[in-house]
């Protein structure tokens, strides 16, 4: 792969890919595979499925590269594809569990057509998490309303701006902010014991 590719912006690489450069595609994959894996894993909670979704995302990027329009931000386009692939995976239903949202949280927000998982089920990748706190945070993430979880992950884990999130999700910026706040509030309630334990230890 040419070294110059590492310096090119995403959109330029996409342009090269549209002209048949596989090296440009490889460069884009290397740039985004980890961040996409992180995003999908925090939403799905299973590494195998996460890997599958991220691969499917890049396959779609490759096959539909001609549909990438000039002037579009590549990251936004990529996350939109990822989001769709994630939804498709969720709707496939083989591994989706029922009762995904806790009853006390269910009334606080709409489900927006998303499915999620039972937070009581143990995560298969426990060893990947460094501590009990991380496991608890991951489980709490999987327990909140999926429409909130998505924007919270994009904002607090992927460090995206409200405008970027609005562009990816197709929501108004105000709706994005409100969902992020509601998601955080749900996480606070779920993480209260851990939160106070940490607070207690840090204060003492």
């Amino acid at each position, binding site marked *: 792969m040419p070294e110059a590719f590492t310096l090119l912006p995403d959109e330029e690489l996409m342009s090269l890919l549209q002209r*048949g450069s*596989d*090296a440009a*595609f*490889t460069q884009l*994959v*290397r740039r985004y*595979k*980890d961040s*996409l*894996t*992180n995003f999908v*894993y*925090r939403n799905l909670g299973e*590494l195998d499925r*996460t*890997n599958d979704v*991220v*691969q499917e995302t*890049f*396959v779609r990027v*490759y*096959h539909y590269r001609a549909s990438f329009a000039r002037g579009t931000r590549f990251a936004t386009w990529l996350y939109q594809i990822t989001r769709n692939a994630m939804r498709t995976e969720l709707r496939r239903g083989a591994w989706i569990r029922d009762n995904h949202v806790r009853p006390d949280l269910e009334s606080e927000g709409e489900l927006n057509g998303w499915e999620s998982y039972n937070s009581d089920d143990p995560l298969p990748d426990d060893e*990947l*998490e*460094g501590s009990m706190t*991380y496991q608890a*945070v*991951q489980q709490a*993430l999987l327990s909140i309303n999926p429409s909130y979880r998505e924007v*919270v*992950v994009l*904002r*607090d*884990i992927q*460090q995206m701006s409200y405008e970027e999130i609005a562009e990816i999700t197709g929501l108004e910026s105000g709706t994005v902010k409100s969902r992020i706040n509601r998601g*955080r*509030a749900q*996480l*606070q309630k779920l*993480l*209260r014991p851990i*939160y*106070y334990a940490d607070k207690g230890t840090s204060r003492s």
Partner: protein
Amino acid sequence: MMRYERRSSSRSEQIRHALSNLPRIPADPAFDRDLHLRIDNEGGEIPHLLHSLPSMTAPGNFEEELWKRIGTSAPSHRTPLWIGMIGGWRTLNGLVYLLGGAAALIAVVVLSSHKAPAPQELHTSPTAATIAENLSTHLPLSLQTQAPVMQKQTATTEPSRRAATSALASAVKSSQRGASSTESLKIIQSAPVVVVPPATPPAATVAPPMQTDTAPQGTAQSSTADTHSTKSEVIEEPAASAGGPSGEE
């Protein structure tokens, strides 16, 4: 005025007294804790906690698996997608044209093999020739001599039909006048022969090519032919029967 002021002051006193005596409602025990959480959230405690989560990374063989999934083993050796698409499209089109051409060819061959024989083929077919030969060899001589007559009959037209009718009529008249049967027969024989188109298969209507020029001679022979052999054969040909051996009787 003074009375009004005194009354209002007493009322406000009463209200103040009532308010001060309202039962006290204690604050929610969780109020302080929730307030604390709320302040922490606004200050970014939850975002900080989420951001501190360990980053997940793609597996080491991610790219290899991806290229396999896309459909090729190594990106550098792959044909560009658009070439593959065009090639695939052309291959598909070519296949469609090939199948269509083959089907058309088969259809032409099948149709031509089942085509009905042309009229001229009937004349030259061995069946017709065989029939003619059999007729010439096996039929009695009297019928063979009639064959040219039959061939001539096919060319009979409306005027000859009228002439035959008038000849018959004159023969009937002459017989009514008392003429001999031989005389009437001569009148009939001199008339042209009219034949009703036969309902027999086409092969039967084909006349053998021989003896075409011997018609007068044949007619003369027919008068001396055997009557028994011709009776059954001449039924379909009224004119022939009229001019046949039966007339000699």
